[in-house]
């Protein structure tokens, strides 16, 4: 396994101001992510997983602390730089797919490849997630699992350095979820994309290189799986 650090976070803290109350979402989080690894971020809701993921992906910024992505400090980046960072290096997969309903599968992917620097063809990305046969279907004509696979194709089509997935199977049944996870694993394997999957589903942790536990805004533990279990063998 390659040991190059892709992300390095130190002392990350995030506080939301909700009226007169301050809600601390992250407390002094330190984290390193390595090239090509498949990380599962495990924790109950409200533990700060999504906040961490959003900060790593440049969707949100930390209240204090540093995030380094191959030599760039994201904490110091402005709006424009964050946009460029997301455009060139990050792929997102969301729990509710977030496809553009008025665009077909192919067009949803194209919307991203059109602005990326070295993308693959949309068809290629969709083929990779097993959606090569349903290129011209609109989201409304696809099942939840299919929509999520289109979303994965959209995320990997730009050849991102990192794939950030927030509860990708959260809205899916077990069998469908497995198909989606297989697609993620395949992208990780074949493209070598660093992949971070947020979940509260402990089963999914078995397919990871590394499992990071979060609770109450902190990293409460971390372990490395000696053998990754193929997604196909998972069920919940």
């Amino acid at each position, binding site marked *: 396994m390659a040991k190059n650090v892709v992300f390095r976070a130190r002392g990350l803290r995030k506080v939301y101001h909700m009226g007169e109350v301050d809600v601390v979402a992250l407390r002094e989080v330190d984290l390193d992510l390595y090239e090509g690894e498949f990380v599962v971020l495990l924790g109950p809701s409200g533990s700060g997983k999504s906040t961490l993921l*959003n900060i790593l*992906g440049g*969707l*949100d910024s930390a209240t204090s602390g540093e995030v380094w992505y191959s030599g760039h400090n994201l904490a110091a980046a402005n*709006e*424009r730089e964050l*946009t*460029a*960072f*997301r*455009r*060139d290096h*990050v*792929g*997102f997969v*969301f729990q*509710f797919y*977030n*496809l*553009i*309903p*008025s*665009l077909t599968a192919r*067009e*949803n992917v*194209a*919307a*991203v490849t*059109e*602005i*990326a620097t070295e993308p693959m063809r949309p068809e290629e990305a969709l083929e990779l997630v097993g959606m090569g046969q349903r290129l011209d279907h609109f989201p409304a004509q696809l099942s939840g699992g299919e929509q999520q696979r289109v979303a994965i194709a*959209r*995320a990997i089509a*730009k050849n991102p350095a990192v794939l950030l997935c927030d509860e990708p199977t959260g809205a899916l049944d077990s069998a469908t979820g497995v198909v989606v996870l297989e697609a993620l694993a395949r992208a990780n394997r074949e493209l070598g994309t660093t992949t971070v999957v947020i979940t509260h589903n402990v089963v999914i942790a078995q397919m990871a290189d590394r499992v990071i536990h979060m609770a109450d805004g902190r990293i409460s533990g971390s372990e490395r799986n000696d053998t990754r279990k193929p997604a196909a063998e998972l069920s919940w």
Partner: protein
Amino acid sequence: MRALDRKLFRDLWHMRGMALAISLVLVGGISTFVMSLVTYQSLKVTQERYYDRQRFADVFVNLVRAPESVAEQLAALPGVNQVETRVVAPVNIEVEGFGDPVTGLINSLPEFGEPRLNVPYLRRGRLPAPRAEAEVAINEDFADAHGFEPGDELVAVIRGRRKQLDIVGIALSPEFMYAIPPGAVFPDYERYGILWMNRKALATAYDMDGAFNDATFSLQRGTQAQDVIDRVDQVLARYGGLGAYPREDQFSHRFITEELRGLETMATIFPVIFLGVAAFLLNVVIGRLVATEREQIATLKAFGYGNFQVGVHYTKLVLLITSIGLVLGAALGARFARGLSNIYQEFYSFPYLQFRLDPMILLQAAVVTVGAAMLGTAWAVRRAAALPPAEGMRPEPPPTYRATAIERLGLQRRLAEPTRMIIRHLTRRPLKAGLGILGIAAACGILMMTNFQRDAIQWMVGVQYDLSSREDLSVTFTDPTPQRAVYSLGAIDGVTHVEAHRSVPARLVHGHRSYRTAVEGIAPGGELQRVLNAELEPVPIPPEGIVLTEYLATDILHIRPGEVLTLEVLEGERPVLEVPVVGTTRQYLGVNAYMDRAALNRLMGEGPAISGARLAVDSKLQAEIYHELREMPRVAGTVVRATAIRQFNEMMEETILYFTFITALLGGFIAFGVVYNSARIALSERSRELASLRVLGFTQAEVGYILLGEIGLLTLAAIPVGFLFGNALTAYVAQAFSSDLYRIPLIVSPATYALAAAVVLVSFAITAVLIWHKLSRLDLIEVLKTRE
């Protein structure tokens, strides 16, 4: 095509109903803008060319009689380019098979060659041949009214002498585009004709051999008309000059100029209202779209689309909707302009129409429209562009509601839950509700303005003919005539009442302001011609002093009762007199000055002379009365009241109907655009909530009530606001169109209110049907399945 642009078109298709409704409102604004300005320009260009080609004079003067040798003196005046002297004679015309009295004006043509000025534009046939003694050309409106063609004949009574004339040509003239018989207020094509005849023949018949009684001038470049006018008046003073006046005061020109000014006003008010409403609708619709597409925006941003690109994306959508309106509006506007120009061309007897569609007007329309659309959507687009992606991923927090003031007053027990929902929803966003009300109110106001013109005109005519000028017939004499003529008029069988009046042309001067009109000396206690006060009650004419039309006193001369007015009389010895102003009178058509007839005679230093008379007659004997009047040598013209009113109404119906049709249509566009969009947005915002209620067991009718009740409440609230707005708008229009030619009274009939409200309510009804249909297809499961 880029994927995001595809999204754009599909979004647009998805919201096509709303987009169309907005486009229609835009169409309203753009089409009225284009219509008014294109018509204005086309008529302006046509007018200029027509004036230029027919050598329309710059200065005009009438006089009693001057020897032709004076012409050289006039031509030598500094600043004068060309002079044309003419003999102009009032005539009575006999048309075979037409019993009503017909009068006319004969203008002389030079014996040889073309006139230097005011050249008639020949439509058919030819002008009278040199030396021909009984040939005339007649104006086209008169010819058409009687079906005259070259080769036909008519009889003219000139100074009491009957003369058989051959019609050889049908012509038009810029001088008589709006031809009005003396003593009348409206054109009457059937009973008033303009004739052109050789100078010699006319002069012989009118006892003007070697003399002239009318002159027109063109000026050298850079000459002030007033300088020439002063010099002309000096020269003609001893020949009974009636005061020269510039083209600006030429009646026909004045009327057209006022009409063109009206078009310019139209070109501003309507587009401002329409574009304002369209901007508001765009704001609401794009704002809602941005709200529904929150997550999509956040997703796009998560994948690296920048603020600018997102902003451009929504801006493109706005431009797309706008350009639909722009293209349709411009096309429709150009079409309306054609129709309107043609109506004007016919109405004002332009010989041709230089229809001109100036690309600059279209460009202006585009710039103004796009500007308004951008302004209207700036906030929504900015919100989309600036949406932080992490925030967009989270669902919007539930909207905060409060108990309303109505509820705090303790009325809640009377309100069922759905009604409370309606009220709370409206009061949660008072600004939006307020703007919605304003939008519907604007439609209501425009619709009121449409009908107001008709109400106002009917009122004007009613005041003029039922309260003020109540005669059946009016007779004008060729010259001031001894009062005993009244007895010969009264002796005619069937004449039941005669009121004589003295009319003196004069320039009214107060300080540096002045106005040319006639001072009417009327009989005190008259029944047929009455002076009205501000409450439109007849008031007796004071035995001394002068009474002015309100508008003349306040807006033109700036003089108040108690102050002294200078009268420069324009006939006879041309005395300059001082008269105290003793009152004002309300009058909608024209402006005049009134005096007691005896007082005016005294002031003029003359005996009891009269210029005309008003008659009440037995309608059964009308034909015989006309016949007798025609035989009276000094009678220059006879105007019949009933036909004047009918004629005027017919004429107005035609022009106003076109406006009414267009504005009613466009007002309907606004009403529907606002109501439909409000309902559609409410449905989109609340489909989850409504579906939840359906799941809980509410019927479609109950759910429909919540949604449509809200819009219905807005619509109802908008109607009184619309009435207020309509009143303000009509007041503005009345003000903008006021001139010495006419003032538009601020009269709005109950029917006008009713019609405006009805159109708004019909828009609501159509919307309700469409929304009901959508509600019936509300997919309960699907709505509840999507994420919260």
